[in-house]
């Protein structure tokens, strides 16, 4: 059988969405630092506004530099297209506002980024009466049981936070699709190098590009990708996709744009009206990261494995949680869904509890103590003494965060230096 001859993943990291600039032949993606674009003739201008002609109008809605990033991430995820946003948080908001309105309902994994949880728990109910039921990410039946007639989205993260639960995307996708609901995956921790949710049944993917996609810790951004798989018309629950939209002369997105209905609506309504747009400079920074995603992610994973191997044997460490370890509850699932690696984030328990945790963090020299993940530099956080410092031990246990829990995001340094840094800080942590 002949080979289709598609460009492969590593090539797309460098080339997707871009051809050398026609005017000057610039090989790198130029930064189009402009708010707006000259129309040419009046008929063409009208055609642009009516979504029939191609090009850019105003950089809140689209920009040539940002468009390269959008296409590139869509290519790497295997989707039909993407919309970049001002942050990962904005991608989640954009997906929700595009899909649903007043009184809708979301079923979400309970093990998600705290910012996503805040949005679901407090802001969406206040603004739009949109409520969320949180369920155990390891329990597909709980997802099924939580879906109601008002449910418009099932949501989870490839790798949960901080428990590193591996989402059984094929199984949960089936649960969602059986009820005519799309599944959206936050693929931030895995990146398309380690996992492509669309290949396993997800319909929408979001990224905090702030993390591994950018990889350098220099820019906040998000990307919302559509797999083009979900049949909005057949579901019958998505009037934003199927019913006339007065703001565009009664445009019905599915009728006109088929597999691209969601993306078109997200851009021409969501970016236009809500305005959480990515800046071209940001897209440029993020593109520098995406170009080396494969080599970086492989190194992140290799370093993580070296650190995990060290921690497992360290006497100061009570337990280590990483999906590749045999005692992790999702070990088999990780092997199946994440064969290239289970990411670069892990957690462990330090003997000596909250105080030892504090001493450990303060003694680290290479690991940076801060609230982020997915930087080229290694990062550490001790939730019990920082983000969750006001909680009692009992309250921490209730949300699955022990007093002893330390989360590491492993960077690209020489793994020998990372291990040496951890070793000396662990030793110091036990000298109360």
């Amino acid at each position, binding site marked *: 059988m002949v080979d289709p001859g*598609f460009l492969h993943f590593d090539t797309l990291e460098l080339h997707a*969405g871009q051809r050398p600039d026609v005017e000057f032949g610039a090989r790198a993606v130029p930064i189009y630092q402009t708010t707006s674009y000259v129309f040419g003739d009046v008929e063409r201008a009208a055609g642009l506004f009516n979504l029939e002609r191609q090009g850019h109008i105003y950089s809140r809605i689209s920009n040539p530099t940002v468009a*390269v990033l959008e*296409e590139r991430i869509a290519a790497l995820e295997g989707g039909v297209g993407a919309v970049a946003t001002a942050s990962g948080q904005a991608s989640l908001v954009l997906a929700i506002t595009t899909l649903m309105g007043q009184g809708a309902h979301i079923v979400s994994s309970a093990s998600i980024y705290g910012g996503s949880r805040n949005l679901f728990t407090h802001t969406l109910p206040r603004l739009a009466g949109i409520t969320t039921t949180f369920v155990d990410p390891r329990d597909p039946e709980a997802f099924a049981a939580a879906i109601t007639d008002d449910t418009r989205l099932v949501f989870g993260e490839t790798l949960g936070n901080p428990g590193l639960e591996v989402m059984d995307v094929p199984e949960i996708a089936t649960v969602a699709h059986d009820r005519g609901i799309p599944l959206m995956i936050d693929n931030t921790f895995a990146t398309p190098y380690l996992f492509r949710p669309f290949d396993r049944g997800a319909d929408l993917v979001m990224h905090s590009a702030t993390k591994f996609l950018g990889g350098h810790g220099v820019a906040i951004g998000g990307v919302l990708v559509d*797999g083009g798989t979900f049949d909005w018309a057949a579901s019958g629950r998505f009037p934003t996709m199927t019913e006339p939209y007065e703001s565009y002369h009664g445009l019905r997105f599915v009728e006109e*744009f*088929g597999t691209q209905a969601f993306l078109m609506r997200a851009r021409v309504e969501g970016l236009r009206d809500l305005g959480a747009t990515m800046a071209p400079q940001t897209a440029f920074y993020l593109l520098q990261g995406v170009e080396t995603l494969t080599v970086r992610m492989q190194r992140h994973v290799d370093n993580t494995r070296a650190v995990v191997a060290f921690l497992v044997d360290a006497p100061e460490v009570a337990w280590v949680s990483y999906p590749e370890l045999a005692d992790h509850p999702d070990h088999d699932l990780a092997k199946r869904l994440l064969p290239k690696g289970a990411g670069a984030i892990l957690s462990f328990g330090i003997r000596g509890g909250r105080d030892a945790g504090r001493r450990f963090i303060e003694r680290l020299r290479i690991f940076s103590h801060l609230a982020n993940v997915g930087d080229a530099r290694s990062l550490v956080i001790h939730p019990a003494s920082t983000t969750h410092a006001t909680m009692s031990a009992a309250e921490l246990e209730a949300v699955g965060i022990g007093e002893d829990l330390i989360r590491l995001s492993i960077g690209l340094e020489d793994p020998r230096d990372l291990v040496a840094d951890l070793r000396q800080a662990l030793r110091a942590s036990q000298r109360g």
Partner: protein
Amino acid sequence: MDLTVADKAVNVGTGGRDHTGGVPVVLLHGAGMDRTVWQFQARALASHGYDVYAVDLPGHGASAGPPPADIEGYADWLVGFIDAAGIDRAVLVGHSMGSLIALDVAARHPDRVLALVLLGVAAEMPVHPDLLAAASADDHRAFELVASWSHAKAAHAGHHPTPGLWMMGSSLRLLERSAPGVLHNDLAACDRFGDAAERAAAITVPTLLLLGEHDLMTRPAAARPLAEAIARSRVQVVPGTGHMLMVEAPDAVIDAIVAFVDPVTGGSGAA
């Protein structure tokens, strides 16, 4: 808009505007695809004043099946569609398999056709045996081969003029939506149609052959016998594009259609 042809529901896109009595333009998609390949042309042609009918062929998109087994069957269906729509004579714009359907109608029913625009057309459309075999087995590889070969090599890296749209993924997803067997039905119909140049000799209406410079499925040279056979034909090559030229270069295709159709129909609103 929904119509019924031979008791079967037909889904028709009108480019986002109600018909206003303009020149009827029927857009015919290719094998295994649907009306949305014309998403930008449909809207632009409707804005221009034409009455646009972007049809889902039987068994494709949201139109009831089954698909006719051969090009003549599709052509007979199209005549039925033109009747059902209450159209006297229409401009037929066809892509790939759709171009053969349009060509066959123009050859056999010249009184129903105002003009022809044939995109990604060739006098013969033999289909690669591996592709036919994969399609026959409903093997996903068939979608991959069509998606790959349908785009110029440059398009494999994207850079779509519509911000954020990834062409290769979009074409693949569109083909994956086809019902089992439909792609094979269509490819086999193209393969069997044989030499279209003989039939094309009967075509009397103005005809534009709109070709992709780097089309691998229907190479520009393969359209030459048609250009010679059709008395009032013109050839236009869209630079840099492959077989999916209306997707790869939507604006250029819109401009080419309007520039050709307006003069031969006396302008968009004049029918």
